[in-house]
């Protein structure tokens, strides 16, 4: 037996496929023993590599680098002043564009990371739900009591996303309420936490999970899941439209 689809399966496992392609890969994976073995082996390997083998820049290098940058910064200001003066309006427009970036990282990156960390920790620890209920009249007050905020909680069972419960979690140092939804075999977590004016990261993929952010009322929201792109977009639209 030699499956011709293994590269496709790998792309799916790496979160590189969207929509119909992802669905096709999922379907193939259900019936192909070779690809199932590949999936299991790849997951084990990823876990091992992620936890065991990443090097961190030594402090000596950090210090040396800071000194080198100081030297660079001292050497260049005059030249850059004239370049800046010459480019005039363009430069200030650029500066305005960059100002936005300065506010964003590293908090934006850590925010995405923090949410995917929380999501995967809950999934692997089997503790995705602290209060199990499909009734939003149960989940909402529980979240209000335990997370200290009261986001709207709506069941979207008719649209394919069944409310299964809630939990509290930590997002970049904030206490967050998490409404947990089931979509087939996949879980979708809807995080919410108080908006303190921080910039939110752009939507994207992180370690195979889709993640999206938005603000509504006085709360920040993040949805995270490994569902396919179309379902994820649908969920976000539903979550943004929720009113009680």
């Amino acid at each position, binding site marked *: 037996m030699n499956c011709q689809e293994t590269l496709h399966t790998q792309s799916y496992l790496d979160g590189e496929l969207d929509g119909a392609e992802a669905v096709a890969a999922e379907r193939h994976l259900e019936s192909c023993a070779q690809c199932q073995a590949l999936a299991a082996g790849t997951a084990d*390997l990823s876990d091992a590599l992620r936890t065991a083998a990443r090097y961190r820049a030594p402090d000596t290098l950090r210090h040396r680098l800071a000194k080198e940058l100081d030297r660079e910064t001292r050497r260049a200001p005059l030249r850059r002043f004239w370049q800046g003066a010459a480019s005039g309006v363009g430069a200030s427009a650029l500066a305005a564009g960059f100002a936005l970036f*300065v506010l964003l990282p590293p908090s934006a990156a850590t925010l995405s990371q923090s949410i995917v960390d929380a999501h995967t920790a809950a999934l692997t620890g089997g503790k995705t739900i602290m209060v199990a209920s499909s009734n939003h009249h149960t989940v909402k007050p529980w979240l209000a009591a335990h997370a200290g905020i009261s986001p709207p909680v709506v069941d979207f069972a008719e649209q394919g996303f069944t409310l299964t419960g809630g939990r509290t979690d930590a997002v970049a140092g904030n206490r967050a309420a998490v409404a947990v939804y089931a979509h087939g075999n996949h879980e979708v977590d809807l995080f919410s936490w108080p908006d303190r004016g921080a910039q939110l990261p752009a939507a994207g993929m992180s370690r195979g999970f889709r993640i999206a952010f938005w603000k509504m009322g006085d709360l920040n929201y993040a949805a995270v899941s490994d569902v396919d792109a179309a379902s994820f977009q649908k969920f976000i639209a539903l979550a943004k439209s929720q009113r009680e």
Partner: protein
Amino acid sequence: MDDRRRRFEAQALPHLDAAYNLARWLSRSPVDADDIVQDAMLRAFRAFDGFRGGDAKAWLLTIVRNCWLSAGKATRRRGHTSLEDENLMAPENDPEQTAIQAGAKRRLDAMIAALPEEFREVLILREMEDMSYREIAEITGAPIGTVMSRLARARALLRETARDCP
């Protein structure tokens, strides 16, 4: 501190660990990795005005890889002394766990180090640095199809090695 320095520290410096990790795995030498990363960060800083947003991490890792290439084969094979390295990110603080993991870590380390360069770099970029296929293709200058097959090959080699010497 001037504006460019501030922007650089906000956008590029958060990826210093990623830069070091890549340099460390490419060169397989802590000394070379230090030099490569310092060289790369200074080049990045000088070229920073030309960086127009986008993904600073992929941009920086491309520079790191170029610096490693231009450091030349002479220094590239200097050696591999990674085994007792305190710069590996420790996943646990529990001493018993740490002892068990230290052995596994060492084996894994040796297995990755033994991979051919072109397989090793795609594996590091994908598995440790979360780069997409497209980003890996840009960083390594290889077509996406090649990235995919190298990644598959790298993973298969690691799995085989793990199976042969458990």
